C-alpha cells in the first residue's frame, strides 16, 4: 500500500512538473537589411597625355568608364570637352581630336568631343541594372597634330557624365 501511495505521489509530482512547464512561447525578431544604393561612375585615369611630333597621330590612349548600378533604370553616359586643346590663342582643330566608343550592348555615338554634354553611350535594356564588377565602356582617343602646329602644351578637360533618363 505504501508502495502504491509512493508511486502515485511520484506520478503526480512528475505530471505536475510536466503540466507546470510553460506553454510554447513565440517571440519575433524583426530583421531589416538595407541595401545601399549604387549609381557609380569610375574612370580609370585622371589625365591623358601625349608627346607627339607635328603630323603624327596617336590612337593608343583610352579612358575606361565603369558603370555600376543596382537600380533597374535607363541610364546613359555623356561626354564633352570644356574647349578644344588649346595653348593660349593656339588651338588644335576639333576634328583632329576624336573618340571611338566600345563595350556594352547599347549604342555608341562616336566622333569629335562635343562642347556640350552629348550622348556617348546609351545603355541597352539588359544593362539598366549592372552589378558585380559593372560594365566597362572604353573610349579610345585619337589625336592628330597638324603639320604646322606651333610647339607647346595644349590642354583641355573632358567630362564624363552619368545620369538616368527622366
Amino acid at each position, binding site marked *: 500500500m505504501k508502495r502504491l501511495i509512493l508511486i502515485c505521489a511520484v506520478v503526480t509530482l512528475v505530471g505536475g512538473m510536466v503540466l507546470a512547464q510553460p506553454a510554447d512561447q513565440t517571440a519575433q525578431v524583426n530583421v531589416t537589411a538595407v541595401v*545601399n*544604393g*549604387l*549609381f*557609380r*561612375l*569610375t*574612370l*580609370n*585615369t*585622371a*589625365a*591623358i*597625355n*601625349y*608627346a*607627339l611630333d607635328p603630323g603624327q597621330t596617336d590612337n593608343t*590612349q583610352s*579612358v575606361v568608364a*565603369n558603370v555600376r*548600378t543596382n*537600380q533597374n*533604370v*535607363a*541610364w*546613359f553616359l555623356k561626354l564633352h*570637352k570644356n574647349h578644344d*586643346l588649346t595653348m593660349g590663342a593656339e588651338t*588644335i582643330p576639333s576634328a583632329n581630336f576624336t573618340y571611338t566608343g566600345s563595350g556594352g550592348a547599347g*549604342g555608341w555615338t562616336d566622333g569629335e568631343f562635343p562642347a*556640350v*554634354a*552629348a*550622348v556617348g553611350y546609351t545603355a541597352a*535594356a539588359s544593362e*539598366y541594372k549592372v552589378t558585380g564588377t559593372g560594365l566597362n565602356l572604353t573610349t579610345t*582617343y585619337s*589625336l592628330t*597634330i597638324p603639320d604646322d602646329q606651333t610647339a*607647346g*602644351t*595644349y*590642354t*583641355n*578637360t*573632358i*567630362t*564624363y*557624365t*552619368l*545620369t*538616368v*533618363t*527622366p
Partner: protein
Amino acid sequence: MADGLGRLAAPQSPNVKSMVKKAYILSALGLMIAPLASLAQGAISLNVWPPKIELSVMPGESCTGIINVDNKGSAVANIMTYISDVGMNIQGDVTFPEGGSLPYSCEPWLLVNPEQFRLAQGASRQVRYTLKVPKDAAGTYLACVFVQTKPEDRPFATGSAISARVGSLIIVNVTGTGAKAAELFSLGTRQSKDGKQAQVELGIRNKGNVLLRPTGTIEIKSEAGFTVEKVEFNQDKQAVLPFSERLYPIAISPNVEPGAYRLIATIDYGGRELLAGETKIYLVAAGPAAKAEDKDKREKAKAEPSSRPAKTGSAAAAPKASPEEINALLAQGTKLYSSGEYQQALGVWQRVLKLDPGNAAASRNLARTKEKIEALKKAKGG
C-alpha cells in the same frame, strides 16, 4: 652621449649608415613616384544616390532632402555640386542646358549645400537640397543636381584632364495642378540607325503640363487582318516632357515578311482617353533584314475617332526662316521669359511659330508663357 637636443646619439656602424642612406633614397624615390603612381592608377570614382528623386509638393510649400555622395576613387576628390536644367530633344536625348533657361525648370527654386567640398578616399558626404515651390507653379518641373570632380591632375604634356560627374535628377510634381493631354502626331516606319532593321516610329506630343510615360501596343496586321506582330510599346516607361514632342523607335522583328501591312497603335498616356492611330506600311527585303519603305508606298494615316489623325513622317511644315534666325529668336524669347518680360516673350514665340509652324520649343514655351501670364493676372486679381 647626448647631443645638443638632449637625444642620445648612438654610435653607428658603416652597415647601419649604408642602410639609413638606402632608406633615405627609397623614401625620396617613393615621394617622387607616388603622384605618378596615383595618376596611373588614378581611378576617379563617384557614387551618387539616389539618381532620380520624384517629389510631390503643394504650391507655395518647401521641402528638403539628401543626396549621398561617396568617393570610391583612389585619391582625395575635390567635389563641386550645382544645378542644371533638364531638356530633351525629339529623339529622346536628354540635354542639360543652363539652369533656369527652360520654362519647366525648377532650378530657380532649388538650393544645394555644400557647393564645394573635399572628400577623402572612401569617405561619404550628404548634400542637402532645399526646394521652395512658388504659389503660382503648376504641373511638372525638372532639374538635375550634378556632383562633379574637379580635375586636379592637369596633363603634364599635351592632353586632357579627366573629370567625372554624376547627376541626380529632380522631378517636382506640383500637387493638384497637373493637366494631362496628349496626341499622336506621327506613326510610320523608318530604318534603324545602323540601317539593318526596319522600325516603327511613333510620335507623341505632350500638350499638358505634366511629364507623361505613355505605354501601349503596336500591332502589325496583314491586309487580311491577321496579326503578324504585336509589340509592347515603351515598357521601360521613357518619358515625354511637358509641352514636348518625342519620337519613339520600336524595333520590328526581322521575321516579318516583306509586304503590305496595317500598323495599329493603341497608347495609354494616363489621360481620360486612349490614343489610337492606324497607317499602312510596306516592308521590303533588304539583305537579311526587312527594310522600311518610306516614300510613295506609305499611305496617309487613318485615325480612330478618339484620337487626332496620325500622320506619317514629319508633321512639321518647312520653316520660312533659317535655323540660325529661329535659334536667335528662341534665345531672345528665353531671355525675355527669364527676366519676367512675359508679354514680350509671348510675341517672340508667336513670331517663331509664324516662321516655323512646327517648332516644338516655341509651342511649348508659348503655352508655358500663356500659363504664366494667366497665373499673374489671377494673382493680381485681374
